[in-house]
């Protein structure tokens, strides 16, 4: 223990704060933001049977944050009777996308191939986005499980973006920007996003300019969405820990600054 440095105490404190908050499981209640409500209203406004293209543009490292967001969106879409066509434009998103769609499909008794489908991964995301604008079948001749495109009832009416009611990019990086630029601006498809909190400021200008239709971000966005669809999940469960850990970080910043300035004064005096 003699080797513990100041940073270790800070980490240990954060660990304890999160641990206690998680164990307490107090429901803080979440104020729903306009952005989350907009995304919710958008999915509500689509008639049942609408087709949404969900792109799993994420990596395993961001899964703890992105999973609650993705689950909340997929659950809402599926519960509203929308059909989902899943794709992955990052290789790591392939297994993630398929498993999440399968999980929600099982929860709601939906049938793979009829209510939802996962087309898998395609490299060179810009080429894939442009290619889907011409023909989704040519881009993905078969689905993730190797079934031919034409054998899947959910894809029967779908040729390209013209038959897609909206694209939702589930992204932890910059892929949403490309969806806006290539699918949104060039093919006129409505692009929305569920993104990691770190990317919110990147996409805010696109939301303000109307290029991005709706956006929810981070664990907070997931919690708000879970509240809107009346179905608790990791987002709402993590809100107390999120709040207390942020307060802890702010207190640490204040203590660090006070210690720094006191130290500086001492050094000047001595």
């Amino acid at each position, binding site marked *: 223990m003699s080797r513990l440095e100041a940073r270790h105490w800070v980490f240990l404190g954060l660990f304890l704060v999160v641990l206690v908050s998680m164990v307490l499981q107090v429901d803080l209640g979440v104020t729903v933001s306009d952005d989350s409500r907009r995304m919710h209203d958008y999915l509500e406004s689509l008639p049942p049977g609408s087709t949404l293209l969900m792109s799993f543009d994420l990596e395993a490292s961001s899964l*703890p944050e992105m999973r609650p967001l993705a689950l909340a969106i997929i659950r809402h879409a599926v519960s509203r009777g929308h059909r989902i066509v899943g794709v992955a434009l990052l290789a*790591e998103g392939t297994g993630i996308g398929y498993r999440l769609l399968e999980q929600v499909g099982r929860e709601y008794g939906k049938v793979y191939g009829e209510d939802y489908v996962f087309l898998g991964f395609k490299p060179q995301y810009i080429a894939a986005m442009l290619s889907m604008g011409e023909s989704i079948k040519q881009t993905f001749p078969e689905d993730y499980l190797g079934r031919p495109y034409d054998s899947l009832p959910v894809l029967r009416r779908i040729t390209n973006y013209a038959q897609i009611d909206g694209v939702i990019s589930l992204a932890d990086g910059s892929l949403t920007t490309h969806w806006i630029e290539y699918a*949104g601006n060039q093919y006129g498809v409505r692009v929305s996003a569920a993104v990691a909190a770190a990317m919110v400021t990147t996409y805010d200008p696109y939301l303000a*300019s109307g290029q991005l239709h709706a956006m929810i971000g981070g664990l907070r966005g997931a919690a708000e969405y879970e509240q809107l669809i009346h179905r608790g999940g990791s987002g709402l469960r993590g809100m107390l820990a999120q709040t207390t850990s942020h307060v802890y970080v702010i207190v640490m910043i204040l203590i660090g600054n006070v210690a720094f300035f006191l130290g500086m004064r001492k050094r000047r005096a001595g």
Partner: protein
Amino acid sequence: MDIGTIVAGLLTLAILTFLYRDNPIYKMAESLLIGIAIGYILVITWTNSLMSLLFRPLLNEGAVWLLIPLALGLMMFGRLHRRTALLSRIPIGVLIGSGAGVAIPAMLDARTLRQLSATVGPVITTGGVPDVSMLVVLIGVISTLIYFYFSREHVGWWGRTARLGTWFLMVFFGTTFGYTVMSRMSTFIGRMEFVLSDFLRVIN
């Protein structure tokens, strides 16, 4: 409890040991993560890229035109030897040329023209009341642009406006940093939830 949850739980704890200091347990978990990720990406890329887009259509469907991208791809390996390095410039040229051709019009439209159009809005609403948010945007954009204009010395009113621009930049950096901290906390909370619920079963 299934074996996957046990392995994931133990590996999560192994990664967390780094908080104390770098150690062999952390290194093992990190190497395993990187190895599995690369292996997974290789398999997915081989199946979805080389097999489905190149070898299968070329060999099964006789799509001979695919020999052109195959040849260009092989030329890339020219970089591995000094005498053949020049060959790699051809596919790099094709990549950059086609990439720029596709990207420039799209980016110019989405990132410049539409953003510019969204920035320039009326500062007075139809009711004759000033639109505060548009005023903030106007002042923020102008002062920040002045900060990045280095052909004139930042003194006098020009310098004061440039300094105002730095305040806008600081607010942006602060917000971005705050969101990034939020993101990292969310990841940590997500892993803690997994450890406490699925692995240790302390919480429901």
